């Protein structure tokens, strides 16, 4: 999924920022209740959760990018 995320990041550059978090090294995975990987959590500009996706689904991931960009 990493190449797909990289491509979407380039496409939505300036609108959506991607923050990669190593779940084993960062405690924020536990704070968000993440238990399966990969997990994608879209936040709006205030930090509120917009959407959460568990598992790799390119189409859903792109839809999440669109939703997050619209929430800007």
């Amino acid at each position, binding site marked *: 999924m*990493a190449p797909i*995320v990289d491509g979407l*990041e380039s496409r939505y550059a*300036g*609108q*959506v*920022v*991607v*923050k*990669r*978090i*190593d*779940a*084993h090294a960062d405690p*924020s*995975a536990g*704070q*968000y209740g*993440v238990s399966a*990987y*990969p*997990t*994608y*959590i*879209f*936040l*709006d*500009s*205030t*930090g*509120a*959760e*917009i959407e959460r996706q568990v598992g790799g689904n390119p189409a859903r991931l792109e839809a*999440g*990018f669109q939703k*997050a*960009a619209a*929430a*800007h």
Partner: protein
Amino acid sequence: MICPRCGAETSEMSAQCEWCGAAVARPAAPPQAGPPPGSPGMPPGPSPGEWYPHQGPPAWQGGPTGPVARPPSSGGGGGPWYTRPWPYIVAIILVIAVIGLVFVFARGSKARPDMVVAGKPTLLDFYTNT
């Protein structure tokens, strides 16, 4: 009473003298104190000495006293509160408002502005290397 003819004392209940047989006039009933006829207060009842059939239970038994006139309600519409729609509408609105507040508060409490990069919508990509 005293017989006007023979001066003997006669019975109160007798119309004639028990000694000489003369008619004895009973004195007129003294006027009773109380409200004049037609005045509010005691309803017109039987004259003294009369009796009338008892109607209903005695007052000390607390029997039904008949319909009681209710004071006019100031709210209008009549009837108790639970027969009107407004209390239910207000209750529903309050419940919706409380649920909305809880939802907004829960969402706001989950907000993590420290995770936002450059003040823009951010995707948190949780991954593992294993």
